[in-house]
C-alpha cells in the first residue's frame, strides 16, 4: 500500500510540475529559514556552556537607584567579591574580571596595540574552564607579575618558541608567562588574549580595592552545589547598602547562562557579539512565518486542484478505502513533499551559510554528525510542515463522496475550499505587507540616524590614542603645531571624542543643590580645541581657553545639566565634581555624546588631565594623502613601530547601530522571501482560478466583452484581497513599529505615506503576479476556451 501511495504521489508531483515547484520551493525556503534559525539559536544557547561549574556560576549585578531612575549595572563595587565570599558560606569562590584594549604590549622586538588584555583574581581559572596547554590553572596567576596567554597570542609574539617564562611588557611593567591556554572559544562572553592579576590595577589605574564607590569590575561567584541562586540573591540584596549607605544599589545574581542572551545592563562587556533574546524571538517568528506561507501555498494549491484527484479519491472509496485511508494517503503525500523540500533546504543552507555567518558574525557550520538536536529539529520541522500543510487538504479531499464524484457531476465543493483559500491568501498578504512596512520603517530609522544633526560634525574626523610624543603634554603642543602646518589638517584636540571614555558619577555638588536629591551626570574630559574641532556651539558663557589659567579646574556643562540643576544662568556658579571645586564657565549646546538610543542627559566637561585621544579634523579632500601623512608622523613620534591605530569617528558612531543594521538586513531578506513565496502561491492560485473561469471568459468574449473588461473580472478579486490585507496590517504594523522604535530616544515618524506606498507596492506586485494568467486568458480565442467544457 505504501508503495502505491508513494508511486502515485511521485507521479502527481511529476505531472503537475509548476504546482509542485511552487509547493516545494515555498516549503524549502521556509524550512531553510528555520534551519538557519535553529543553528543560530543553538549557537546562542551554547554560550558559556563549556565551563565545568556552569550551573554553580553567577555574575553579581545590581539595580542602582538615583532619584527616581533605576540603572541596571553589570559591574559592582570593587570590594564586593571578597566581602560576599567571606560572609556567605554558600559562596565557595569569587573572581573579578575586566578587559581592555589599545594598550602597549611588547615582547622582544614585537609590539602591538591590539591585544585584548584582561585582569582577574588568581581564582579565575579555578572558576572558569579555559583549558591549559601549559602551566597550572590553580597557581598561574598567583604571582602578581604572572601572565597567562592564549595560543594565538603566543604565536603572535613568540612564533613557535616556548612561551612559558618569556617576558611580556605591558606599559612599563614586565610580566612572566606562566600559562598557555587554548584560544577562547567564540561562544564565550569572556574574551581575552592575555590575562594578568587584578592587583596590578592599583598601579595602572591607581585603583583602590577597598573603595565601595568604585565599580570597575565584573564580579563572578561560584556557589556550592544545589544552592538556589534565587534564595541567595534575596540574602545578598542589601550588602552594598550595608557597606556604603550612599549607594542605593540592590544586588542580585545573574545565572551564567543568562549573560549572553538576557542581559540588558549598563557598562556590560561589549567586546564580543552579544546576543539578544528579543531578536531571537523576532527572527524565529519570521522564519516560522515564512514556513507558514509555504504551507499556505500548499493548502491553497492542493485544495484548488482537488478536482484533479476527485476520481481517484472516489474510486478508492468505492473499492473500499475508508476515510482514514485517504487521510493517511494525503498526509503522507504532504510529508513526502516536505521531505523533498528538506533536502533542497539543506542544500540552500549549505550555500548561504557563509553569507549568513558574515552577517551574523558567527561561525556556524551545518554538521549532522553527533548533532542530535539539529537532526531531531529538522525531522520535527519537516514532519510538522508536512502535517500542517497536509491536514486541511487531507480532511477536505477525504470528505469527497464517491457518489458525487462518480456521477460525473462537476461538483461544487469549490465554495467551501474557496472561502478558506481567500482567508489564507489575505493572511499571507497581511503579514507580507507587515514585513514590507517593517523593512521600510527600519530603513527610515537607519537613514534618520545617519542624517540627524548630532550637535557636532562627525564627518572627516579621525582619532587615535595619544601615545609617544602625542601623550606627553609638552611635546604634544610642538607636535600639534607641526601637524597644523599641513593645510589638510584643520584642527586638532587632545580630548575624548563624543561617545568614547565617558564616565558617570553622582559625586557632584553645586551652589543651591538640594542635598536630598541625587542626580547622575556624565563626565568627559576635553581640552581647549574640543569645541572648534568638533564644530560644537556654546549656548551661554565661554569654552575652556588658554587665556584663563584657572580653566584647568573649571567646568563646562551641557544644556541638559543646566536644566537638571534648575538654573537659568549657571555661568559663574561654584561646582564640585568628586570634591574638586571649580566654576561653571559656560553652557554648551546639547550634543549627542552617545548613541541615539539614549536621551541627552546632564554632562560635565572638564579639562583633561590624563592621556586622551588625538582627534583631528581633516579636509574632506585628499583624505588618503592626509592619512599617510599622519601615519608618517605617528611612526616618527611614537617609538616602537606600532601600527597607526586611527579610526574615523563616523565609523565608530555607525558601529552603535550595527545591531539595527544587521536586523535591517535580515528583515529585508526575510521580506523578499516572504514576497516571493506569497507571489508564487498567488501565481499558482491565479492560474487555477483562471482555468476555472475559462468558460465564463469565453462566453463574455462572445457577448462582446473587451480585453480590459475581462482583465478587471479576473483581477478584481485579488485587488480586493490585497486591499483587505492592507487594512488589517496597517494598525498592527503601526503598533509594532512604534514599539520597536521605543528603544530610540530619537526616532523617525511613521508617516501615512509609508503605508500608502506599501499598499501601492503590494497591489502592483499582486497584479503583476496574476496578470500573466489573466492576459493569457483574455487573449485566448473564445472558441478554444469553450471547447474545454
Amino acid at each position: 500500500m505504501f508503495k502505491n501511495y508513494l508511486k502515485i504521489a511521485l507521479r502527481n508531483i511529476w505531472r503537475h510540475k509548476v504546482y509542485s515547484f511552487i509547493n516545494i520551493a515555498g516549503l524549502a525556503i521556509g524550512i531553510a529559514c528555520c534551519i538557519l534559525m535553529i543553528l543560530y539559536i543553538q549557537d546562542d544557547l551554547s554560550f558559556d556552556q563549556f565551563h565545568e561549574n556552569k550551573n554553580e556560576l553567577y555574575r553579581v549585578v545590581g539595580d542602582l537607584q538615583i532619584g527616581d531612575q533605576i540603572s541596571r549595572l553589570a559591574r559592582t563595587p570593587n570590594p564586593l567579591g571578597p566581602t560576599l565570599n567571606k560572609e556567605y558560606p554558600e559562596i565557595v569562590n569569587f573572581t573579578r574580571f575586566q578587559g581592555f584594549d589599545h594598550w602597549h604590549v611588547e615582547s622582544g622586538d614585537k609590539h602591538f596595540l591590539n591585544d585584548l588584555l584582561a585582569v582577574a583574581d588568581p581564582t579565575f581559572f579555578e572558576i572558569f574552564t579555559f583549558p591549559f596547554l601549559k602551566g597550572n590553572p590553580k597557581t598561574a596567576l598567583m604571582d602578581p607579575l604572572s601572565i597567562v596567554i592564549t595560543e594565538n597570542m603566543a604565536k603572535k609574539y613568540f612564533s613557535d618558541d616556548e612561551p612559558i617564562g618569556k617576558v611580556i611588557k605591558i606599559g612599563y611593567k614586565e610580566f612572566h608567562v606562566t600559562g598557555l591556554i587554548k584560544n577562547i572559544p567564540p561562544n564565550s562572553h569572556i574574551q581575552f588574549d592575555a590575562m594578568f592579576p587584578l592587583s596590578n590595577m592599583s598601579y595602572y589605574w591607581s585603583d583602590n580595592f577597598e573603595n565601595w564607590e568604585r565599580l570597575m569590575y565584573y564580579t563572578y561567584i561560584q556557589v556550592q552545589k544545589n544552592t538556589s541562586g534565587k534564595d541567595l540573591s534575596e540574602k545578598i540584596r542589601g550588602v552594598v547598602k550595608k557597606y556604603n549607605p550612599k549607594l542605593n544599589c540592590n544586588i542580585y545574581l545573574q545565572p551564567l547562562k543568562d549573560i549572553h542572551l538576557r542581559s540588558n545592563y549598563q557598562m556590560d562587556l561589549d567586546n564580543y557579539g552579544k546576543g539578544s533574546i528579543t531578536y531571537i524571538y523576532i527572527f524565529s517568528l519570521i522564519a516560522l512565518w515564512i514556513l507558514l506561507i509555504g504551507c499556505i501555498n500548499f493548502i491553497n494549491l492542493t485544495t484548488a486542484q482537488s478536482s484533479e484527484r476527485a476520481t481517484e479519491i472516489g474510486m478508492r472509496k468505492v473499492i473500499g478505502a475508508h476515510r482514514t485511508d485517504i487521510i493517511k494517503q494525503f498526509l503522507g503525500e504532504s510529508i513526502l513533499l516536505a521531505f523533498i523540500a528538506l533536502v533542497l533546504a539543506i542544500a540552500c543552507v549549505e550555500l548561504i551559510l557563509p553569507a549568513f555567518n558574515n552577517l551574523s558574525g558567527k561561525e556556524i557550520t551545518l554538521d549532522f554528525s553527533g548533532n542530535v538536536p539539529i537532526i531531531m529539529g529538522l525531522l520535527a520541522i519537516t514532519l510538522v510542515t508536512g502535517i500542517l500543510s497536509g491536514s486541511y487538504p487531507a480532511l477536505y479531499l477525504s470528505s469527497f463522496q464517491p457518489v458525487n464524484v462518480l456521477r460525473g457531476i462537476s461538483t461544487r465543493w469549490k465554495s467551501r475550499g474557496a472561502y478558506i483559500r481567500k482567508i489564507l491568501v489575505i493572511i499571507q498578504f497581511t503579514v507580507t505587507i507587515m514585513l514590507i512596512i517593517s523593512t521600510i520603517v527600519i530603513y527610515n530609522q537607519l537613514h534618520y540616524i545617519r542624517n540627524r544633526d548630532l550637535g557636532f560634525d562627525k564627518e572627516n574626523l579621525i582619532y587615535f590614542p595619544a601615545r609617544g610624543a602625542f601623550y606627553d603634554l609638552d611635546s604634544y603642543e610642538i607636535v600639534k603645531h607641526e601637524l597644523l602646518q599641513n593645510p589638510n589638517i584643520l584642527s586638532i584636540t587632545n580630548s575624548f571624542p563624543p561617545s568614547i571614555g565617558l564616565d558617570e558619577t553622582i559625586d557632584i555638588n553645586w551652589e543651591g543643590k538640594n542635598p536630598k536629591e541625587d542626580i547622575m551626570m556624565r563626565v568627559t574630559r576635553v581640552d581647549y580645541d574640543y569645541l572648534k574641532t568638533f564644530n560644537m556651539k556654546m549656548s551661554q558663557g565661554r569654552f575652556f581657553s588658554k587665556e584663563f589659567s584657572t580653566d584647568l579646574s573649571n567646568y563646562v556643562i551641557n544644556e541638559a545639566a543646566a536644566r537638571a540643576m534648575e538654573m537659568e544662568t549657571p555661568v559663574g556658579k561654584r561646582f564640585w565634581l568628586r570634591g574638586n571645586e571649580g566654576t561653571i564657565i559656560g553652557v554648551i549646546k546639547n550634543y549627542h555624546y552617545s548613541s541615539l538610543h539614549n536621551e541627552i542627559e546632564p554632562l560635565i566637561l572638564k579639562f583633561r588631565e590624563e592621556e586622551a585621544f588625538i582627534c583631528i579634523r581633516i579636509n574632506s579632500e585628499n583624505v588618503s594623502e592626509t592619512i599617510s601623512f599622519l601615519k608618517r608622523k605617528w611612526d616618527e613620534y611614537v617609538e616602537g613601530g606600532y601600527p597607526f591605530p586611527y579610526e574615523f569617528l563616523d565609523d565608530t558612531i555607525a558601529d552603535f547601530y550595527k545591531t539595527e543594521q544587521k536586523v535591517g538586513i535580515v528583515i529585508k531578506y526575510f521580506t523578499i522571501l516572504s514576497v516571493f513565496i506569497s507571489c508564487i502561491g498567488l501565481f499558482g492560485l491565479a492560474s487555477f482560478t483562471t482555468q476555472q473561469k475559462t468558460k465564463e471568459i469565453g462566453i463574455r468574449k462572445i457577448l462582446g466583452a473587451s480585453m480590459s473588461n475581462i482583465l478587471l473580472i479576473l483581477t478584481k478579486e485579488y485587488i480586493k484581497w490585497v486591499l483587505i490585507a492592507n487594512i488589517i496590517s496597517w494598525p498592527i504594523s503601526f503598533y509594532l513599529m512604534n514599539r520597536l522604535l521605543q528603544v530610540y530616544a530619537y526616532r523617525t515618524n511613521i508617516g501615512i505615506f509609508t503605508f500608502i506606498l506599501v499598499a501601492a507596492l503590494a497591489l502592483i506586485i499582486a497584479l503583476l503576479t496574476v496578470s500573466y494568467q489573466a492576459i493569457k486568458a483574455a487573449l485566448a480565442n473564445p472558441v478554444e476556451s469553450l471547447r474545454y467544457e
Partner: protein
Amino acid sequence: MINTKNLTKIYTTEEVETTALNNINLEIQQGEYAAIMGPSGCGKSTLLNVLGMIDNPTSGEYNFLGEEVSKYSERQRANLRKANIGFVFQSFNLIDELTVFENIELPLLYLGYSASQRKKRVHEVMEQIGIMPRKNHFPQQISGGEQQRVAVARAIVAKPKLILADEPTGNLDSAHGEEVMKLIGELHEAGTTIFMVTHSPDYAEYSQRIVHLFDGHIVSENIQKEFKI
C-alpha cells in the same frame, strides 16, 4: 442476495426536493443477471449507488447478504463493499497515475493481500480479460474498450459476489461495447451476480431479467430467461 423494502432516496438541495427513488421493492437472487432500464434521470444510477452502498437511502430497508445495511456507517459499508461488490462505470474511472496492473491491483491493496498474492491474482485476471500485453501502460495510452476491460478486471479481481455495472458500454463504440458485454456474460456464466444499468435494449438482452424504472418507480419487470440456481 439483495432485498429492498420501500427503498426511497430523496435529494434535497436548498430549494428543491427531488425524489430519485420511490418505494423500491426489489429482490435479486445470487447468480442472477439483472438489467435495469429507463429514461435519463429516472433514478437508475441512484438505485445502483444505493445498492452498491456508496449512497445511503433516505428511508426503507435494504438487506444485503442477510444484513440490514440501510443504517450502516460509512466504515461498515466500505468494509462490506470491498469484500463483496465490484463496480464498473460508464466513464471507466481508472486512476490516471496508475498503470493497468496497478489499477487492477488496487482493491487487493485495501483487502490486505500480500504482494505475491496480488501479483498472482492480477495476472490471472489480466489473462482472463486478455489485457496482459497492456500491463505496464497508463490508462491514457490504451483504447476506450481496453480501458473498460481494465475497469472490469478491477471490478472482479477481488472475486466479488456482485458486480454493479453502470452503463458499462455507454462510452464505447459498438464493437468494443460488444466485447465488454461478452465479458460480463462470461462472468455471469462463472457464477457472479450481475446488476447492470443500461440504455440499450440490445445489451439488456444479455440479462435474465429487465427492470424498468420510471421517475423513481419500478414500472415493470420481465423475466426473459429461465433463472437456474
